[in-house]
């Protein structure tokens, strides 16, 4: 019995179960995920068994080693041809190992490496009672403002649990774009979401706001998961399988055999349309598309800034990967149904993100709305439904994640007595006081705005070009208008930093350790490199743009 057939057995409940064979797992091809999840498990053990003093170093080293070796595994797999010719479906049909999956996994891993650097930064917050501390709460479980919290701060506790949590989330993100059946998709979604809810609650400063953000994220995330799950159920009812390939066969009408137990519902298009829409909704929630975006500003603002950067970059990469696979593998047969709807979503997302950002006064909220607008731009590439569309989205995600992590890393540097000074009015005249920091932030803002010679321009150009060639000219027009609106508030920040008088009680720019410095430097380097020489990376994305089915 072939592995796929076995997979069919446990996903097709109607078949009698005479025996359960041992599943066949291709460990080598799943190595990136296995390494990261394995390291996360070890991280939990470290929390339990390693003395408190040594935990920080151990965890940082472990996380870095895991991410680096996972990335090496991705490169090795790509080098072995799994990104193109040898692309296949592993783990009995659950996980695809193909070009888009490997490209996105690589992107997630690289972004995670620099994001974990900002997690580990311990120079920015002033030392509490002689202990160097990071951006995270001393003890997550203590009530904000309580005596136990003060005691924890005094004792110099730090929440080193963030590293295993992040690794679990990354593990989920690695599976998410590779998931090849709906159940795996759901499991990956939960694996990546749950640790993020926790991480959001762990800010050292403004803990109440942080916890509020986490609760909102959790409630809304659970809400959207429910929709997703319901959609999965409906799709199963439609196709009699949760496997992408099997659903696609039913959609195309090439299915070999109707399942007698599901004869009443199978092939019922209403189930397909409603189920498809609900699954789409669950994914659009994760990418922060309008009207499922409302958690984004609150959560981005409340979460610890390193987590915000990580979330904004890596989650978006993973979620768009899953969305691409769903639309290109499962639902290409019904693209005339979903394309107009996605048109509407993309237009709303671009416009709403850009327009609402205009009146924001907080840097983190501004970047949150900017990320919404960018989700809209990426959706334009998704809608292209072409190979160019896939490669442009892959490129855009890579470019965007480094700009985002870099920008949030700069936000962690600008501080006053209350921690990070995120109100825009405090950034006035920053360019006079700290020209280098302001210049770096300006580079990121220009990249967000899509100014030529930055990665943002190359990405936007690729996406819009693919969309226009895919017959979505009107979408491109809206995209360009939104870019113009968005340019206003990006440039406004630059003007504020360089052409306003500094305030006397303005914030200072903290001197970070090499960790954050590396993050920002990598962000700038990637932004400029992808802006100056986009072709190599576009080719790379282009060679990785075929989905296995």
């Amino acid at each position, binding site marked *: 019995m072939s592995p796929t057939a076995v997979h069919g057995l446990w996903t097709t409940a109607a078949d009698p179960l005479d025996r359960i064979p041992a599943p066949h797992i291709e460990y080598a091809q799943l190595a990136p995920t296995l390494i990261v999840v394995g390291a996360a498990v070890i991280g939990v053990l470290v929390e339990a068994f390693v003395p408190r003093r040594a935990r920080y170093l151990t965890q940082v080293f472990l996380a870095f080693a895991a991410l680096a070796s996972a990335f090496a595994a991705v490169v090795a797999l790509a080098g072995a041809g799994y990104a193109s010719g040898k692309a296949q479906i592993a783990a009995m049909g659950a996980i695809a190992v193909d070009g888009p999956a490997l490209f996105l996994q690589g992107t997630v891993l690289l972004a995670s490496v620099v994001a974990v650097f900002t997690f580990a930064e311990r120079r920015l917050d002033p030392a509490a009672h002689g202990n160097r501390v990071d951006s995270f709460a001393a003890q997550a479980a203590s009530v904000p403002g309580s005596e136990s919290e003060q005691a924890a701060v005094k004792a110099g506790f730090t929440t080193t649990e963030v590293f295993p949590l992040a690794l679990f989330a990354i593990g989920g993100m690695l599976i998410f774009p590779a998931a090849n059946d709906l159940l795996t998709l759901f499991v990956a979604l939960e694996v990546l979401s749950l640790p993020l809810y926790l991480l959001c609650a762990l800010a050292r400063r403004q803990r109440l706001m942080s916890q509020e953000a986490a609760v909102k994220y959790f409630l809304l995330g659970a809400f959207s998961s429910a929709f997703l799950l319901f959609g999965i159920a409906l799709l199963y009812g439609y196709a009699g399988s949760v496997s992408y390939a099997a659903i696609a066969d039913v959609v195309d009408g090439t299915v070999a055999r109707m399942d007698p137990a599901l004869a009443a519902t199978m092939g019922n298009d209403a189930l397909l349309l409603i189920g498809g829409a609900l699954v789409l909704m669950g994914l659009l929630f994760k990418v922060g598309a309008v009207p499922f975006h409302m958690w984004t500003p*609150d959560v981005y603002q409340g979460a610890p800034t390193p987590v915000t950067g990580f979330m904004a970059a890596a989650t978006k990469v993973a979620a768009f990967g899953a969305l691409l696979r769903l639309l290109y593998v499962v639902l290409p047969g019904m693209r005339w149904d979903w394309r107009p709807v996605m048109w509407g979503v993309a237009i709303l997302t671009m416009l709403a993100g850009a327009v609402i950002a205009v009146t924001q006064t907080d840097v983190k909220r501004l970047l949150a709305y900017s990320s919404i607008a960018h989700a809209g731009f990426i959706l334009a590439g998704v809608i292209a439904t072409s190979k160019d569309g896939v490669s442009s989205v892959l490129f855009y995600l890579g470019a965007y994640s480094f700009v985002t992590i870099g920008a949030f890393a700069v936000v962690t540097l600008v501080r006053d007595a209350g921690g990070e000074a995120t109100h825009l009015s405090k950034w006035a005249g920053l360019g006079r006081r700290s020209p280098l920091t302001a210049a770096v932030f300006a580079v990121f803002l220009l990249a967000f705005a899509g100014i030529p010679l930055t990665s943002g321009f190359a990405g936007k150009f690729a996406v819009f070009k693919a969309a226009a060639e895919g017959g979505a000219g009107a979408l491109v027009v809206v995209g360009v208008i939104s870019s113009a609106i968005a340019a206003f508030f990006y440039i406004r920040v630059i003007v504020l930093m360089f052409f306003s008088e500094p305030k006397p009680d303005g914030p200072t720019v903290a001197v970070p350790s090499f960790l954050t410095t590396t993050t920002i430097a990598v962000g700038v380097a990637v932004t400029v490199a992808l802006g100056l020489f986009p072709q190599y990376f576009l080719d790379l994305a282009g060679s990785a743009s075929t989905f296995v089915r």
Partner: protein
Amino acid sequence: MENLIALLVAAPLLGAAVLLCGGRRLDKTGHWLGTLLAAVSFGIGAVLFADMLGKGAEDRALHQKLFSWIPVEGFQADVAFQLDQLSMTFVLLISGVGTLIHLYSVGYMEHDERRRRFFGYLNLFLAAMLLLVLADNYLLLYVGWEGVGLASYLLIGFWQHKPSAATAAKKAFLVNRVGDMGLSIAIMLMFTTFGTFAFGPVLSSVGETSEGTLTAIGLMLLLAACGKSAQVPLQSWLGDAMEGPTPVSALIHAATMVTAGVYLIVRSGAIFNASPDAQLVVAIVGAVTLLFGAIVGCAKDDIKKALAGSTMSQIGYMVLAAGLGPIGYAFAIMHLVTHGFFKAGLFLGAGSVMHAMNDEVDMRKYGGLRRYMPVTFATFGLGYLAIIGFPGLSGFWSKDKIIEAAFAKGGTEGWILGGVALLGAAITAFYMTRVMLMTFFGEKRWQPAPDADTAPSAEPAAEHRAGELPHPHESPKTMTIPMIVLAFGSVFAGGLFSLNESFVKWLEPVTSFEHGHPPIGAAAVTGATVVALIAGVGIAYAMYGRRPVPVVAPRGSVLTRAARRDLLQDDFNHVVLVRGGEHLTRSLVYVDHSLVDGVVNGTAASVGGLSGRLRKLQNGYARSYAVSMFGGTAVLIAATLLMRGV
């Protein structure tokens, strides 16, 4: 031999670079260096000329490609030179007259602190002008064209401390921009039509092009020529350009630069030949300017401005001839060369007179100078006889041929153009006789020099002695020698050129030539010209020779007053262009403020307002967010189902 061509341009260019960058070290010797390099250029020109004479008529043209300037796929521009008979003529005129005027300037600018800079600009002008006539394509010609414009601007405004000089320079610059725009449009049209700029391919493929396109190119070239050569309607700058030092007026604004328009038209002859409409417009512009300049010249009391009007008028003759086609091209160039001699000589003479008279330019304050300045008188007088077309002198040969050719155009327009040219000859005789009589004859009307501070002109060549009568004296040798040489040219050049039609035959391979046949016979035309000449001289003698010349100008008739104001050219420009332009800009500003800014600000305000309203939706309550998600999902599902339904 062709490798020498680049040196023609390089020598004065080197001079300009050295003099302008060399600093004060060169103050003592710089002027001689500039003169020497101009002479070197002339020497090379002479060598090339001798070489050219030794060859057959058809293979005299030389080409030199210096380097590839803009090598782009589909757009090839080379820095390449073409030396044919037409360019050769100009090279000799420019470098020859140029060298003489450099020499003259050594004396004339002796007391000027910025003499080195002056010679630097003069060399720059020579380089640009030689580039203009040596270029083998229109794009490189355009470089030279702008170069001479720059040099002209710098030299008109050389005494920039005088507001009138600064204004005059600006005016020349602005008016020339209009013409330059015409040239650039013509070049663009050529590129889109022919795909190249080079003279050879452009002019040889004229036959395959529609007449409409050629007319457009021709008219744009004419616009360019009008700007550079001060032809109606772009003539207004030339009179004011006389604010520049007199050698500049002689070299740039009489002998060479202002004839660049004629060169352009003759060089592009094939285009005009194929477009009779454009050609007729050229002839009309020439005829109108010919009368315009002559009438202005009659009314001016400023000796340089009278000569400037005359220049305008004489170039009008050349443009008229160029507008007659193959029967006129050669005579246009011939008149250009003879005019180069006698007009440069006249200007140098005028400079010499001013030099002697404390920089006084008002002819009403001259009088009786022939006894005090015999050399100036003699050379100026020969130039005078040449320009009025006294039989046997240079101007006679060339102008008579143009009048003949104008009649030979045939039909009504032949009669009109010929008549205008003949009338112009009479007026020329009148105003030049007037200049001659007012300056050198009659009683002394000399006035004490005004205070140095209030001096209208700041030509520093003569020392001002406030309150004293001028002591006219002959100018130094450096000034008189060039005048004498030019006088020789004024007397003999025309006859030499006409001997056995040598000049026409020389140019024929480049410009092509046809004999014109005037309807009334060549002898009759010549007779009429002589009659016109006698009439002009006679009237002038009656008005200025028999009666004393009043020191203060009489009010004069309406025409006289209009002519003194350059036939209201500036008033016209002011009312139509300046006022009109102001109205246009004001209304554009209004549109910009109310409409464009309104739309921009309105858009910004509405985006901001929308943003303010939308952000209220973000109220912080998870329940509202959940409702939004629920509603969104409902819409999503509904839309998906609807799409299937549609």
